């Protein structure tokens, strides 16, 4: 039998490099199919059900699921599983509320973005502007956190590879470009530049078409990686998951209980935010407008749900296995909980599996980041100019390509210059910001005729205000009681504002075509 162990680091580098080459190839292929802004932002609405479902699920599960998820299980026990167990009701809510109706809006109004639908529904350019600003703000923070994660992983892969480090140290040009001042490792700036170049290349050349087709193989890698890791984790502890449960329960019964170490109210607030909030993630729900037929929503729902559930096995299995191994003394204590996933892969996974999973990690990060780039670019070149000047800018396709680069550079600079604490916070708050600003105005609004433009505007502003207040509070050491999630609070407040103002207002007169879509 071939011993791959001495080649572990080289195998990881080869898999990641192959993955990046494949992304570039898809970008070049998609470039020939991107002829106008409709192709760039909406893939010409030609996606089949399978492609759309893979795009939906892989955009939902970001790098957070592959690194942050195991970290949370290791650190807090079962608490973070509430972000996963909500997936069945969450996808059901998203598709019942949006799957059909967003696609019908797309059929009748030919929108290029989510704020286009919002502007048509409410007949208000102010609502379009506010939703675009909310999307852009969330995108910058979320994108920066994804880029930082990508850069940190690439940095550790390069630094642990002696051959690559030797090559860099032998070349004075590479040394000056990539290495830090004391010549001990590569800089985050350099790894951000490398990973960002690949991401930007396929997003600029192929737009959303490249994004969704890379999502397909990114999703496939994630599913394979998660299944293999799940089996490896089960075998890493004698007695499998039953033994893991018993070891963790013997140490701290609450950690293995349904509320984990976070407690009941914190877990339930996560459940609410992640179940309902899925219907407010622009990088995900925009993709439901891109399918070829309205009826495709029927198949996209179960396929996306199954893909997510299988991929989330990695989240659970690594976290439980590492906590058990450390508690039993079979593995030394980790330097930080964030190392749970990488320590498991480096120690217990077969080198080939480690290669697949590291490629899967990049896939998870990039599949979410490309979705953010797309919706952020649409807000920048399509929606904000339309809201301010009343008409779209000329040559949208060219400007969209330029804006993709600008947005990626802005997020990279933000990722490099801001403290890691702020980026982690913004990344963690990204889901909550999107959920609380867009769920009332979009998910409820396109299903409820009483919703008014004023209510939508106020709910977006209220959601941003609550999120920013909680963020500032947390940075100053203030905590919400009972570990309630700030995003969940913002979502409940924005729903209350939206429904309250709408019910106190006169029912709006809707255009015939909007009413027709909402009547179905």
């Amino acid at each position: 039998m071939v011993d791959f162990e001495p080649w572990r680091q080289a195998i990881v580098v080869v898999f990641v490099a192959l993955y990046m080459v494949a992304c570039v190839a898809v970008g070049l292929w998609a470039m020939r199919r991107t002829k106008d802004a409709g192709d760039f932002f909406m893939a010409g609405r030609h996606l089949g059900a399978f492609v759309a479902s893979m795009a939906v699920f892989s955009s939902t599960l970001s790098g957070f699921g592959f690194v942050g998820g195991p970290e949370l299980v290791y650190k807090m026990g079962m608490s973070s599983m509430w972000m996963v167990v909500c997936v069945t009701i969450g996808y059901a809510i998203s598709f019942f509320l949006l799957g059909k109706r967003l696609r019908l809006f797309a059929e009748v109004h030919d929108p290029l973005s989510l704020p286009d639908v919002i502007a048509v529904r409410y007949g208000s350019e102010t609502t379009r502007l506010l939703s675009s600003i909310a999307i852009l703000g969330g995108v910058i923070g979320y994108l920066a956190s994804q880029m930082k994660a990508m850069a940190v992983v690439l940095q550790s892969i390069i630094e642990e590879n002696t051959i690559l480090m030797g090559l860099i140290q032998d070349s004075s040009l590479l040394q000056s470009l990539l290495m830090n001042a004391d010549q001990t490792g590569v800089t985050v700036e350099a790894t951000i530049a490398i990973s960002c170049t690949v991401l930007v290349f396929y997003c600029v050349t192929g737009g959303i078409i490249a994004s969704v087709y890379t999502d397909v193989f990114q999703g496939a890698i994630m599913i394979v990686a998660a299944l293999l890791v799940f089996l490896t984790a089960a075998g890493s502890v004698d007695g499998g998951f039953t033994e893991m449960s018993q070891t963790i329960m013997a140490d701290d019964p609450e950690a293995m209980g349904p509320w984990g170490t976070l407690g009941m109210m914190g877990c339930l607030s996560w459940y609410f935010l992640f179940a309902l909030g899925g219907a407010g993630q622009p990088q995900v729900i925009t993709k439901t407008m891109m399918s070829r037929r309205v009826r495709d929503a029927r198949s996209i729902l179960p396929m996306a749900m199954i893909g997510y559930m299988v991929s989330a096995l990695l989240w659970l299995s690594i976290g439980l296995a590492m906590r058990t191994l450390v508690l039993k003394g079979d593995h030394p204590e980790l330097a930080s909980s964030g190392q749970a996933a990488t320590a498991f892969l480096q120690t217990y996974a077969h080198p080939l599996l480690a290669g697949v999973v590291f490629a899967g990690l990049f896939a998870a990060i990039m599949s979410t980041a490309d979705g953010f780039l797309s919706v952020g670019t649409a807000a920048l070149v399509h929606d904000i100019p339309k809201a301010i000047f009343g008409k779209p800018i000329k040559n949208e396709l060219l400007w969209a390509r330029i804006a993709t680069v600008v947005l990626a550079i802005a997020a990279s600079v933000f990722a490099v210059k801001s403290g890691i604490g702020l980026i982690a916070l913004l990344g963690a708050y990204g889901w909550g910001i999107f959920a609380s600003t867009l769920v009332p105005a979009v998910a409820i609004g396109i299903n409820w005729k009483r919703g008014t433009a004023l209510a939508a505007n106020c709910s977006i502003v209220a959601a941003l205000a609550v999120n920013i207040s909680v963020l500032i509070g947390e940075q100053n050491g203030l905590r919400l009681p009972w570990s309630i999630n700030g995003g969940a609070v913002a979502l409940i407040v924005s729903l209350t504002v939206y429904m309250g103002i709408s019910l106190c207002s006169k029912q709006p007169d809707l255009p015939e075509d909007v009413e027709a879509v909402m009547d179905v």
Partner: protein
Amino acid sequence: MCCVGGMCLILLSLFFIPDPAAGISPVHSTFASTMFQGDIGVDRHADVRWIGLIFALLQTIFFVSVLFLGTRQRGLFSQLFTVGGLVYAGTFIALVVAHWVYATTDAQDIVWGFPLSTAIMMYGIVGVPVFFSAVYYAKFDDWVMKPDDLQRINDLAERKRQAQAEESH
């Protein structure tokens, strides 16, 4: 609206119930730098278990209500979804009760790899809502998007395209 109002009241009331952990999980007694621990579950949850259950039940009612909002069907659909909603709410009640038994007694039965209360979360809270998606898939043409409605929307879209084409000429 009642559900959302109720959830608002629950969140507000939490500010007036003293939180023993002050919003931060206690650190692990041995691995303090990398792990949290739950401490005594009874102490931690005694004051909020009923309010937490009401919060969970309001969530289930709200979630099933928005599913209705998305389809606006009556008859067999509403009966099925009401039953589904009741089972969903029942699963949450079972979870809270099972956790309380888990926290207050030494009963630590493992069901499919997890303690009973956690197994209810992992299999019940995940499994029950699959019913709603199964209905969406199985009855899409009858309850979600009827072919007649789709035809009506396609005709509307076609009329709109023609009007836009004439306008541009």
